[in-house]
């Protein structure tokens, strides 16, 4: 039987506010344990929550970026459960009246096609602390620094049909939140976390199968692997005559498997009820329009502009616009050198290769956009060839300065002096009578040999175009 996969994602995005959702405690990452856990975060009796205005603004900004309905009245609820990293015994979240309602996200697939994925809602809630289970003489250690950090949980419709679409959705979401500046989106630090609801059904049917929720997927690569392995597991069970149990499963990246988390426990019953310590959050049209006015140019619009304004291919425009920092860098390079196509090639090619190798982000590149633009300028004005440019780029990476100073100090300036080139051409022709004979007998590809010899003699500095032209003239005589 042919099976169809149905995937919905729940993505938690940590909002990059300075202080927590309901208290004035710092949210800075990497502090010593419990140094950012004050009395409210520890649920001391008598403390009360006060909502962070910036978290609300960020949630609304996100909602507007995906064309979602904005809840003019949103309400916080208590989601009750016991776990030591949740001191209050409940998580303050939003159930029936979330700040962000229905919206949609257009995802870009590798083959250039697009799909629209529904977003059911996005609600604000507070994060829990962290439990450490190792090395405390049979006890668990609790760090509450993260407790109370503002999260936006973005829930999608079950609109994705394979793991690649799930990855594309996640990447688009990642791109948008970085454009909006509402989160640093660092998956490795938990600033963006993803749970996947996965089910399968016979192709052609519409009834949803029993789903499982896969937790602990903390990289783009793992999202694809975890979903694929879970789909395989579900199909195997059904084809063997079994049934899928609705449950939460944990993805283990080392073993590349999912395993049941709490199947034996009583089904979750969170007993939500409206948070009596917080009044409804009410916003008006004026507020919404103020936030809308701060929306930046978003990835899809930028992509189209890159195609229109710079004549980039759809693929290049998509790659460069998907990451805000890359897009800004690219535009700064074009500003300097005025050649968009070459700029795109260098940013996506040699520069990206260097960034990948060093595992650094473009904002930390040792070669600034201005310096790279300066190099490209020397290619377009024929000071150096593309081949020599690579040598200059290597020197830039080694911290040897900008293009002009490297070209000068290494003597890499292209030889365009006709007299000098003519002498080299003559020398090579004189030294290789056999090849000259071959050329005269019609073996034209031998010209490559001559060009090679001359480039070697000039240490790559001769202008290849001039060399070619001159060679042809002389050999044809």
């Amino acid at each position, binding site marked *: 039987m042919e099976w169809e996969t149905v995937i919905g994602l729940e993505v938690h995005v940590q909002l990059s506010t300075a*202080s927590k959702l309901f208290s004035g405690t710092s949210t800075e990452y990497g502090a010593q*344990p419990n140094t950012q856990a*004050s009395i409210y975060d520890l649920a001391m009796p008598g403390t009360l929550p006060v909502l962070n205005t910036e978290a609300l603004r960020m949630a609304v900004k996100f909602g507007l970026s995906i064309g979602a309905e904005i809840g003019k009245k949103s309400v916080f609820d208590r989601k009750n459960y016991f776990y*030591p990293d949740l001191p209050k015994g409940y998580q303050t979240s939003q159930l029936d009246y979330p700040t962000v309602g229905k919206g949609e996200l257009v995802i870009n697939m590798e083959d250039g096609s697009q799909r629209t994925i529904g977003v059911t809602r996005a609600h604000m809630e507070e994060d829990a602390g962290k439990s450490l289970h190792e090395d405390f003489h049979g006890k668990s250690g609790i760090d509450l620094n993260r407790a109370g950090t503002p999260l936006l949980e973005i829930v999608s419709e079950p609109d994705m049909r394979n793991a690649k679409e799930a990855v594309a959705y996640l990447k688009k979401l990642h791109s948008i939140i970085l454009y909006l500046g509402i989160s640093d989106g660092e998956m490795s630090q938990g600033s963006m976390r993803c749970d996947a609801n996965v089910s399968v059904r016979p192709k052609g049917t519409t009834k949803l199968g029993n789903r499982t929720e896969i937790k602990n997927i903390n990289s783009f690569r793992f999202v694809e692997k975890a979903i694929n392995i879970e789909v395989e597991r579900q199909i195997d069970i059904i084809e063997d005559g079994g049934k899928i149990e609705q449950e939460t499963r944990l993805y283990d990246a080392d073993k590349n498997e999912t395993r049941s988390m709490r199947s034996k426990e*009583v089904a979750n019953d969170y007993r939500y009820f409206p948070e009596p310590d917080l009044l409804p*959050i009410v916003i008006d049209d004026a507020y919404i329009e103020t936030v809308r006015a701060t929306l930046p140019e978003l990835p899809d619009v930028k992509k189209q502009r890159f195609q229109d304004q710079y004549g980039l291919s759809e693929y290049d425009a998509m790659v460069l616009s998907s990451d805000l920092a890359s897009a800004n860098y690219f535009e700064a390079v074009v500003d300097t050198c005025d050649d968009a196509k070459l700029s795109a090639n260098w940013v996506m090619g040699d520069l990206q290769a260097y960034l990948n190798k060093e595992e650094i982000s473009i904002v930390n590149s040792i070669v600034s956009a201005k310096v790279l633009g300066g190099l490209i300028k020397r290619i377009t004005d024929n000071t150096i060839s593309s081949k020599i440019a690579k040598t200059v780029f290597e020197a830039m990476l080694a911290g040897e300065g900008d293009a002009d100073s490297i070209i000068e100090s290494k003597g890499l300036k292209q030889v365009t002096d006709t007299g000098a080139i003519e002498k080299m051409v003559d020398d090579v022709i004189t030294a290789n009578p056999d090849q000259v004979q071959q050329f005269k007998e019609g073996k034209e590809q031998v010209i490559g040999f001559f060009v090679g010899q001359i480039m070697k003699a000039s240490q790559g500095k001769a202008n290849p175009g001039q060399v070619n032209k001159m060679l042809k003239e002389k050999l044809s005589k």
Partner: protein
Amino acid sequence: MSIELGDVENIAHLARLHLSNEEKQEAAGSISNILALIDQMQSVDTDNVEPLAHAFDAVQRLREDVVTESNQRDELQKIAPETEEGLYLVPKVIE
């Protein structure tokens, strides 16, 4: 509407409460009474009434996003039963 002992046990478990048999009986009776009152309230026609999220007819005031709390870990950990390396220690929990 009345609730059974099993329901009381389930709710007690979710709230991590230990109840004696006598207390369970008593709770079953009290909760049933509360549910009866709610049933009575349910019979009121509320079709044109907007749901109320809070007993006060007021809206939430917001806080500027500034850090106002300082590190008071040492003071706060004095009242914790057990700490180590800045962590609060609790009986082992693992999923």
